[in-house]
């Protein structure tokens, strides 16, 4: 198979593979066979992504028109370094979470299996389509597909708290999507275009496009739970079933934040002023500080991790005021590390809850001895999020701080350092409950209960946490991929 065929086949397979599988699984009510098919699909996509990434590196960004229509009319796919990074993250996480979720659904009583599997596959398809889309209206549609798959995943926990959280999430998402659509309509009214590459080539600065950019940003920010419209996220992500929490935190919220970067860097970059960029950075910084402090004050494990997501998403906005290649690489690297580490954290939390029946931090006492691998995951993934060397988080922060100093905006470096310290604090706070509290479980059922955790539950978070750390050693190797068609200027990393 030549590279050209591959570069057409893979994007199509990434969108329609999971979608068709979702329909099949839903109609035929397959259960275990669905897991095997999903894992098989994940492995195929992973195997094809490697030569595909090489092809994009050699031949430059891929722009492809589905259905063979003219440019500007069709459904275009656009793949550059940022897209490539997100596709890798998506494929890896869905593969590992698929393994975990299959085992989780078998142990969970009553298991929401018939609902979980089609939604999981639909979300996979929607996210792949979102990352691949190179057209504003298709981005709107794919955002809605991810929302319609993500919100029901929250309800699968049953219980009043989960439903109330899902309702709140849905309302935020609904209003956000309408405001986003208003922005899309304004772009079309002014420029007569929707395709992102065409907008980048042709859009002249115009106040209407600035308003459109702000409307789209506000709309997507509600879905990404960026400070100050983050209120729905901690409850929704904490009350969702753990495999779903991992997807929501590591991918769904990030996909919306990705869209903000996509719009500001490139297609509409002529529409904003440095003052607006500083404001976006300030919102990100406020989110980092505020949500990290909130994470320090929580008493439940999953809420700590959920607040940490709000904080970590704030870093992505720091790209806008800095807008250099270093910052671009740093932000993508941050997104990758956070995705791997956050999924590992939520999966490990799911294991702990499965045994302890509760996720109060106080219940963790003594878990370092009986549930050691899960506590290890929290430690490793936490260190990656805090950004200690040699993890991926360290490389990300190193690049971001260098970019801040290079552009003379030292204040962002301060925020990044402070955010790292706070992250270390809330992670070590979890660990201190596990290590330093007296063990109340000497003869309690926890010793027998841990036996039910199968390897398929224990190992995916461990591997994900190690991957988050291994990223720290691959910075030089991956940087050329991230820089493919980076819409920023400046020295290479």
């Amino acid at each position: 198979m030549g590279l050209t065929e591959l570069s057409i086949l893979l994007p199509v397979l990434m969108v329609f593979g999971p979608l068709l599988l979702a329909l099949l699984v839903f109609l035929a009510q397959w259960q275990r066979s669905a897991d095997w098919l999903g894992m098989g699909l994940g492995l195929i996509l992973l195997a094809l992504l490697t030569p595909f990434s090489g092809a994009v590196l050699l031949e430059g960004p891929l722009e492809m028109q589905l259905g063979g229509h003219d440019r500007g009319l069709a459904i275009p796919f656009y793949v550059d370094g940022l897209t490539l990074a997100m596709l890798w993250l998506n494929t890896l996480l869905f593969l590992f979470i698929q393994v975990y979720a299959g085992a989780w659904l078998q142990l969970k009583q009553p298991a929401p299996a018939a609902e979980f599997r089609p939604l999981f596959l639909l979300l996979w398809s929607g996210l792949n389509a979102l990352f691949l889309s190179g057209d504003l209206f298709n981005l709107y549609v794919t955002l809605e597909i991810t929302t319609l798959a993500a919100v029901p995943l929250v309800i699968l926990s049953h219980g009043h708290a989960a439903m109330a959280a899902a309702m709140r999430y849905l309302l935020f998402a609904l209003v956000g999507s309408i405001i986003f659509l208003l922005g899309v309509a304004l772009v079309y009214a002014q420029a007569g275009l929707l395709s992102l590459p065409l907008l980048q080539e042709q859009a002249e600065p115009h106040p209407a496009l600035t308003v459109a950019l702000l409307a789209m940003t506000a709309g997507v920010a509600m879905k990404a739970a960026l400070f100050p419209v983050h209120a729905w996220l901690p409850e929704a992500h904490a009350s969702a079933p753990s495999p779903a929490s991992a997807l929501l935190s590591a991918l769904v919220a990030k996909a919306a934040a990705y869209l903000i970067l996509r719009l500001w860097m490139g297609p509409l970059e002529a529409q904003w002023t440095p003052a607006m960029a500083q404001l976006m950075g300030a919102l990100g910084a406020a989110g980092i500080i505020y949500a990290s402090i909130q994470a320090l004050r929580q008493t439940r494990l999953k809420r700590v991790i959920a607040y940490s997501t709000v904080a970590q998403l704030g870093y992505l906005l720091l790209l806008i005021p800095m807008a250099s290649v270093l910052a671009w690489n740093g932000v993508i690297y941050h997104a990758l590390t956070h995705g791997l580490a956050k999924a590992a954290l939520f999966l490990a939390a799911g294991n702990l809850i499965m045994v302890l029946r509760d996720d109060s931090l106080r219940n963790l006492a003594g878990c370092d001895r009986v549930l050691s691998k899960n506590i290890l995951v929290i430690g490793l993934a936490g260190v990656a999020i805090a950004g200690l060397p040699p993890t991926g988080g360290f490389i990300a922060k190193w690049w971001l701080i260098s970019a801040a100093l290079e552009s003379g905006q030292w204040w962002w470096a301060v925020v990044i350092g402070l955010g790292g310290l706070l992250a270390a604090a809330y992670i070590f706070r979890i660990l201190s409950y596990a290590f330093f509290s007296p063990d109340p479980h000497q003869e309690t059922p926890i010793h027998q209960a841990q036996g039910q955790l199968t390897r398929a539950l224990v190992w995916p978070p461990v591997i994900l946490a190690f991957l988050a750390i291994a990223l720290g050693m691959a910075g030089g190797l991956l940087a050329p991929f991230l820089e493919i068609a980076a819409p920023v200027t400046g020295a290479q990393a």
Partner: protein
Amino acid sequence: MTVMLYATTAATLFALGLYAVLVRTGLIHRLLAANVMATAVFLFLILVSAENPEGVDAIPQAMVLTGIVIAVSLTAFALALLRYLQAADDEEDQTGSQDGRQNGPD
């Protein structure tokens, strides 16, 4: 003149909807307000379509059609969720239990 009329209507509807979403606390009210906002955006898109100098532009119309489908599905889902939520609330009231967290996290 008609353009101004339609544009003002769309802007007013959008502002009214946004105001209600922010101020109202009832979930049904907020849902309806969000739908009013969506209608305002659709009206604006139809205006863009009609005002194309080279005749009616089909792309915004296609966008409105897709948008309506999405808005209807999201609203239907939200209404169903609302009923479940209501039922869960009633159940809690009847049993009079203070323990809303019997179903802990998963």
